[in-house]
């Protein structure tokens, strides 16, 4: 079936730098996207979402960008902190379905 995939399994950044995590999706019918953060031993934590009628959405230290032309989603984290170390998942909701399809995940490592 259609899938949501991530470009890199591991991303290592210096503390204080900005991080960009990318995600590609293949189903043009997807109309809702969510980024989750999952720390070890915990359930996924909702970070930010975006609907297909938007290109950009900002939260606290995070920005999600959606490029529908190339079916690409990114999560930007500003001034990364040690607490940002986690696995980040993108997820999509295909039009007409309520459950989410998850990407493979990117492990973000913050170097001191």
């Amino acid at each position, binding site marked *: 079936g259609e899938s949501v995939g991530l470009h890199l399994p591991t991303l290592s950044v210096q503390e204080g730098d900005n991080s960009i995590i990318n995600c590609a999706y293949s189903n043009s019918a997807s109309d809702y996207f969510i980024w*989750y953060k999952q720390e070890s031993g915990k359930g996924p934590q*909702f970070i930010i*979402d975006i609907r297909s009628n938007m290109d950009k959405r900002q939260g606290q230290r995070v920005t999600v960008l959606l490029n529908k032309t190339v079916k690409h989603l990114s999560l930007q984290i500003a001034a990364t902190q040690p607490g940002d170390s986690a696995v980040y998942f993108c997820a999509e909701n295909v039009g007409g379905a309520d*459950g989410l399809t*998850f*990407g493979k995940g990117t492990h973000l490592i913050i170097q001191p």
Partner: protein
Amino acid sequence: SAVISQKPSRDICQRGTSLTIQCQVDSQVTMMFWYRQQPGQSLTLIATANQGSEATYESGFVIDKFPISRPNLTFSTLTVSNMSPEDSSIYLCSVEMTGGGEQYFGPGTRLTVT
């Protein structure tokens, strides 16, 4: 958001037995879902727990193996039946907030089958 709890948080079970996982939400929600996360993997949707009717299962998951109940708008259970070591995973419930679309996850139940 919502406060979601799951019981048990973890369990070690013998093959051939069954385990029922509970999910409790602190507010009424329209949609509840069950996911599986195998070790080191991403999340896979098992089924949508429908209040008052049978759950809707995704491809590869069947009711006999994963019976689900949803007696009201704040509670659901997932049973993993006739377990084998391949069922060792984290099982997570999620809820979709009424009118919001956002999905929030419980802490998960870590199941090990020996």
